[in-house]
């Protein structure tokens, strides 16, 4: 449609970051355009430059970012040659943006109303703050609420409402739901799609999650190292990917093999590696009533057989992490019993060197879980030395073998490196190695891949599976992601509001979810699970009803 | 911060008081202002240019208390309000009649008759009479907490006080004690008709004093300054309206005000010839009469310091002139061997003693070293001499920090004594801990100075009488070096029993000789009494030429002699 000016037109755009030694290019001659009302998805891994583009469009890219070439036109208005006043005028009227972190993107000390009104004050808005809230399905009575009084999902909705206040031609969504749960994510996109239908604005969605784009986007562009390697309509792209990188990216998202049936292990083995009975963890007791304000874990009885991988699935705040921490003894239960390999986990504070630690933790935050000041060698040596009955072992040899087991070879080359010199995947491997140092019977892996790039997630998952096979450790895999759960786990336990609402063989659960909550989780999986015929994936269209 | 370097009253009434309702505390500052406005007397202020501006009290939190018996009485209470029977002019040693016209001893020196002026009225118009005098002394007898020149007179020598007639008072003594005269006539008198109704005279704040003095009207009162104006019924002619007392926080502030001519009557500016007089030779002047002596006190209960030879050797090593130059800008002279200041006591001092005493006063370190060597105080390995008791002669000299003339003198003492193998370290302390150590005799070396007295009697009693020696640990303002000699007691007793001047003089001469022989304390230099004036607005201040009164503001009663002489300069 050549006669229509595109909502966004980017020609040969180059963006770079000023560095100690000259410019470091981040976006390199990128060109694409979005037709009015079109939903465009820009996918790529962290550091590929997709967010840089998103922020450059409105010239919001922070120092030391510099736009070094090309053109950006929003609905025909040139953003790069216009003077600052003009650019400010164009901002939000022609294009608005929704940032990733919903909490920090609203001013903490101003009410929602104030912040909406502030936009409307620029003029041209047709709706009142109240109407805007209604539009994104938030009770207008919350108008005078402060950001911290809303949930993450609500906050993001508020920002979306704000973004549409001046009915711009283009809305840029910069990873808007990465920090949110799948279900919330789904709901938000349902709303966005609906609004798009009504108002006809174009959307540029930046994400690392290809399958999500399959659900929502009309067109997909894949970025790598600051370049767009491929652009295609969703249908075309699903059928076949031109560029090899697109393929690796797509194949990296684990595929559940529904062909092979579940490995059914005897449910009640004589010696479960983990057994909990009526486990309860309550936080903050109310001074008046004496009753607990928050039941993180509410009467959970659960068993885990040796060599078994069980995925504990649930939304954030469902209590799954708390459960994991209690199993390893990092957190003490309020009541109920935990038996790990025949012992009750000893609370950290009261551990002696000899106390067995059958359960070891693998942490989510690959950046935070290693001390930035210490070498990899230090971390592992400490782990080996402080493992029970470690006197006999030769520390260095043990450390080396650990590194090899997790695929960090040659070990010597890693010993003296510091965390910040390693990639995310490598760090998580170190994390695994550390967990294995005490040769535990059970690994508690708390979202071990959620912070990693798509392409390496599967490697880590495979590694965990392999460790199970080779070392015979059981694994409690804590995640919010049904797909990875189905991919690696023998059994799936679904946790909701501190209780296990459904439990069973992985594929059985995925194919025949019993509990409503499980259904919604599955329905919310971006791009669906790719279930065999007869089991149609729920899609946004249906979920909306 | 300069504090009058006389232990007599190191902290002489520095604070003031103002009647302010405590509400003011709660309300903010401006509210406080209004609170003042409410409670301050609604009198029209006498314009400042009518008033003599003096720097007499430090500080800026004056309160309206004019109880003259307070140990820290407001300055004006004994300088412009309450008057004594007679006033001792310490500059000249002369005793001036005041509320009394004269006195007479009985032959046995056991009773003293004082005749009062008959033209004196209290500021409220009531006549002043012998009853007031009697009342005052009995009041002090009844309330030992009342402090004044005559405190403790009844315990020591006074038997009774009665009014012979309206204008005659008779003091009856329990024992002969002629020096008592000076304490008795020096006592300020309070009006019976006001004080008889006071429930507790010790804590009586006396905000609106009734007195016989020249200035008794609180004309205006602020937290950091106040003005007192004429007593309508004063018994002498006055040519000025009143005084204006400005509070200051420190030397620099005082000096600044003085040098910029904002004061008419002041005390101390450093190096006055260059910094002060030079600014306006025609009007700026000062007169620093010397009425007491600064002495190095060696605690005679401490090892080698008990030996007079050591004390005299120490004395020989001292560079007195340098102390004078650095401490008081050359405005003094080295003390003589009698320990008495020449000014007030010139008739008492025996020139022979001074002459012979020069042998242990005039600086001569070599002689000092020789004395110590001969006396067997050999130097140890570290060059420090060793005492007979085997202890090496290392001593601390303590001075209150802030009394800079004394501290610099002590610094020089420390230096000089090092040269003769006595290791002295200077320790400055807070005024109170210094008082504590010296009064209780828990010190090694310190500086001290005699109280100003009418006769040398007190000086020798306080430095040599066994009666004045208190055991180490018990506080006593006198004889801090703890030196006593029974022979002195006899002489002092003889003196106290005598009413004959010539006899008294010969007794003092003997005491002088004893002092010069034993050196119970080491006289350093004569202590000037700070006093300066600015005659741009007022004239008639006492000067070196016209010594009708000391110029020092801190001197008790001194200012009373001055007020009638002051005149406002015609524009």
């Amino acid at each position, binding site marked *: 449609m050549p006669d229509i000016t595109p909502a966004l037109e980017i020609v040969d755009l180059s963006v*770079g970051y000023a560095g100690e030694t000259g410019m470091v290019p981040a976006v390199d001659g990128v060109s694409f355009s979005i037709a009015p009302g079109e939903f465009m998805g820009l996918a790529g891994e962290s550091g590929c430059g997709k967010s840089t583009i998103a922020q450059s469009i409105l010239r919001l890219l922070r120092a030391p970012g510099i736009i070094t070439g090309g053109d950006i036109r929003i609905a025909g208005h040139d953003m790069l040659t216009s003077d*600052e006043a003009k650019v400010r005028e164009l901002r939000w009227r022609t294009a608005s943006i929704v940032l990733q972190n919903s909490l920090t993107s609203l001013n903490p000390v101003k009410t929602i109303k104030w912040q909406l009104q502030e936009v409307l004050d620029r003029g041209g808005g047709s709706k009142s703050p109240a109407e805007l809230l209604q539009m994104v399905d938030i009770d207008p009575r919350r108008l005078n609420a402060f950001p911290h009084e809303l949930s993450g999902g609500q906050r993001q909705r508020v920002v979306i409402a704000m973004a549409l206040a001046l009915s711009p031609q283009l809305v840029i969504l910069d990873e808007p739901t990465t920090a949110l749960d799948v279900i919330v994510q789904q709901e938000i996109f349902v709303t966005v799609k609906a609004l798009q239908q009504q108002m006809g604005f174009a959307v540029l969605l930046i994400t690392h999650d290809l399958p999500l784009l399959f659900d929502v986007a009309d067109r997909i562009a894949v970025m790598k190292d600051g370049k767009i390697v491929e652009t295609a309509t969703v249908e075309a792209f699903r059928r076949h990917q031109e560029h090899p990188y697109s393929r690796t990216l797509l194949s990296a998202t684990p595929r559940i093999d529904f062909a092979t049936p579940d490995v059914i292990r005897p449910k009640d083995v004589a010696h479960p590696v983990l057994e909990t009975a009526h486990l309860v963890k309550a936080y903050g007791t109310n001074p008046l009533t004496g009753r607990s304000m928050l039941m993180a874990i509410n009467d959970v009885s659960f068993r885990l057989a040796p060599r078994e991988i069980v995925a504990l699935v649930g939304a954030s705040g469902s209590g799954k992490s708390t459960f994991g921490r209690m199993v390893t003894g990092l957190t003490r239960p309020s009541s109920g019993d935990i038996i790990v390999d025949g012992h009750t986990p000893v609370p950290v504070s009261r551990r002696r060197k000899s106390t067995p630690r059958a359960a070891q933790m693998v942490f989510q935050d690959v950046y935070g*879980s290693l001390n930035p000041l210490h070498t990899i060698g230090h971390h592992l040596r400490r782990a080996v030395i402080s493992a029970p009955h470690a006197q006999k072992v030769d520390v260095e040899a043990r450390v080396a073998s650990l590194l090899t087991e997790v695929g960090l070879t040659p070990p010597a080359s890693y010993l003296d490196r510091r965390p910040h010199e390693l990639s995310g995947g490598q760090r998580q491997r170190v994390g695994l190695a550390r967990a294995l140092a005490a040769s535990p019977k059970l690994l508690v892996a708390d979202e071990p891949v959620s912070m990693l790039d798509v392409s390496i997630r599967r490697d880590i998952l495979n590694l965990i599976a392999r460790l199970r096979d080779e070392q015979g450790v059981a694994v409690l895999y804590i995640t919010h992601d049904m797909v990875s759960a189905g991919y690696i786990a023998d059994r799936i336990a679904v946790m909701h509001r501190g209780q296990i609402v459904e439990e069973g063989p992985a594929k059985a659960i995925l194919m025949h979810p019993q509990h409503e909550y499980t259904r919604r989780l599955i329905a919310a999986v971006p791009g669906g699970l790719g279930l065999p015929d007869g089991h149609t994936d729920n899609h946004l269209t249906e979920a909306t009803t | 911060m300069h504090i009058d370097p006389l232990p007599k009253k190191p902290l002489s009434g520095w604070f003031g008081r103002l009647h302010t309702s405590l509400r003011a505390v709660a309300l903010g500052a401006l509210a406080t202002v209004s609170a003042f406005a409410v409670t301050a007397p609604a009198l029209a202020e006498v314009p400042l240019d009518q008033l003599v501006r003096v720097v007499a009290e430090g500080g800026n939190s004056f309160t309206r208390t004019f109880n003259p018996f307070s140990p820290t009485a407001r300055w004006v209470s004994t300088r412009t309000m309450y008057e004594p029977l007679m006033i001792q002019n310490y500059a000249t040693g002369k005793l001036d009649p005041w509320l009394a016209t004269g006195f007479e001893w009985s032959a046995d020196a056991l009773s003293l008759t004082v005749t009062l002026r008959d033209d004196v009225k209290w500021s409220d118009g009531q006549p002043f009479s012998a009853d007031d005098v009697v009342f005052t002394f009995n009041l002090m007898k009844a309330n030992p907490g009342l402090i004044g020149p005559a405190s403790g007179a009844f315990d020591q020598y006074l038997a009774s006080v009665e009014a012979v007639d309206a204008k005659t008072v008779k003091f009856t003594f329990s024992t002969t004690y002629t020096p008592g005269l000076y304490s008795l006539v020096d006592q300020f008198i309070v009006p019976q008709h006001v004080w008889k109704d006071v429930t507790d005279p010790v804590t009586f704040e006396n905000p609106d004093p009734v007195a016989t003095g020249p200035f008794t009207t609180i004309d205006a009162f602020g937290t950091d300054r106040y003005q007192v104006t004429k007593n309508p019924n004063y018994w002498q002619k006055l040519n000025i309206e009143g005084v204006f007392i400005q509070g200051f926080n420190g030397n620099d502030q005082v000096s600044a005000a003085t040098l910029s001519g904002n004061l008419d009557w002041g005390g101390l500016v450093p190096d006055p010839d260059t910094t002060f007089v030079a600014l306006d030779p025609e009007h700026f002047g000062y007169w620093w009469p010397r009425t007491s002596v600064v002495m190095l006190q060696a605690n005679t209960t401490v090892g080698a310091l008990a030996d007079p030879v050591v004390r005299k050797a120490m004395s020989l090593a001292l560079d007195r002139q340098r102390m004078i130059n650095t401490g008081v800008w050359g405005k003094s002279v080295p003390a003589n061997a009698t320990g008495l200041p020449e000014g007030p006591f010139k008739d008492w001092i025996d020139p022979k003693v001074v002459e012979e005493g020069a042998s242990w006063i005039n600086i001569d370190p070599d002689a000092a070293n020789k004395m110590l060597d001969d006396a067997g105080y050999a130097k140890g390995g570290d060059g420090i001499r060793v005492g007979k008791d085997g202890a090496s002669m290392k001593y601390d000299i303590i001075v209150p920090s802030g009394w800079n003339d004394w501290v610099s003198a002590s*610094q020089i003492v420390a230096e000089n004594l090092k040269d003769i193998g006595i290791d002295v370290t200077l320790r400055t302390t807070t005024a109170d801990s210094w008082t504590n150590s010296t009064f209780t005799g828990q010190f090694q070396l310190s500086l001290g100075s005699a109280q100003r007295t009418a006769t040398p009697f007190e000086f020798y009693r306080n430095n040599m009488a066994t009666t004045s020696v208190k055991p180490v640990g018990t506080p006593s303002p006198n004889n801090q070096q703890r030196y006593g000699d029974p022979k002195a007691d006899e002489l002092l007793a003889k003196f106290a029993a005598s009413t004959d001047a010539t006899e008294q003089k010969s007794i003092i001469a003997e005491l002088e000789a004893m002092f010069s022989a034993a050196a119970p304390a080491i006289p350093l230099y004569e202590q000037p009494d700070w006093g300066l004036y600015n005659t741009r607005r007022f004239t008639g201040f006492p000067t070196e030429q016209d010594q009708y009164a000391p110029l020092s503001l801190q001197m008790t009663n001194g200012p009373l002699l001055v007020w009638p002489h002051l005149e406002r300069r015609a524009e």
Partner: protein
Amino acid sequence: MALYDTLASARRKAFGSIPVTVGAVILLILVGSSALAQWIAPYNPKRATGGINEFPSLKHLFGTTGQGQDVLSQFLYGGQNTLWIAFTIAVLTTLLALIVALTAAYFRGWVDDVLTLVTNVFLVIPSLPLIVVLAAFLPPGPLTMIAVLTITGWAFGARLFRSQALSLREREFIAAAEDVGERRWRIVAIELLPNMGSVVAAYFVNQVIFAITAQASLEFLGLGDGGQVTWGSMLFWAQNTSALIRGAWWTFVVPGMAIALTAFSLALINNAVDELGNPRLRADRLLRRAGVRKSSASLMTPVKRNA
């Protein structure tokens, strides 16, 4: 990671940064010269070696005091006393603060509550009156000075360090260390403490400043030992001999400037290092180096074609 990088980069850039160099030079001169006092001081600082309040001359480079002592020598020896006292105080307060903070972080629970309470109480009680009252009742001298200022000076650090420790404690590497079975004290010493390095260093420097000025203030009030030569006592003497009024400004300005410059140089270094460590300012610097000038911090990505 951010922490580690910024620290490293800060350290790297510290040299060459103008404020740091200036500060370092001033500090070096002051500390160096007073350290060498014994050798380079022309006179005995306590002895009168010249006339009273002599104007600076070749014989007395900084003139003489109201007692005729040589100001230069006093400045040198005084620096020695002042600085060692100040450093001791800084070391002690920092240690005390660390001990309190880490004990709180280590034991948590009621111990933490109690210590925090004590800290806060010390924080809100105004220091000077307390210091003055304390100093008035103890015999004057360096030890009193050190004791008093340490007692009154540690609280802020304790709070600072505690909040640091707490935020660090939430980092997962602490949980990880606990999980592999590290002893608590070892976690505190090896995992927590090193990560607080920069904060502790900055605090220490500030403490030196605090100690120097507080010390001077106390001595100025006459609560120090007047027999000791320190910059504070020099000021006390200058004040007591009415130096300014008598025009002997050098006896007053020399020690005052010594104090101010020491504090200044330290503050300068502290501030500069802080700046260098700040990634946002770093970004600005890089932008500037790339030849982009921004008039204000308002957000507008610069366009610089073919850069």
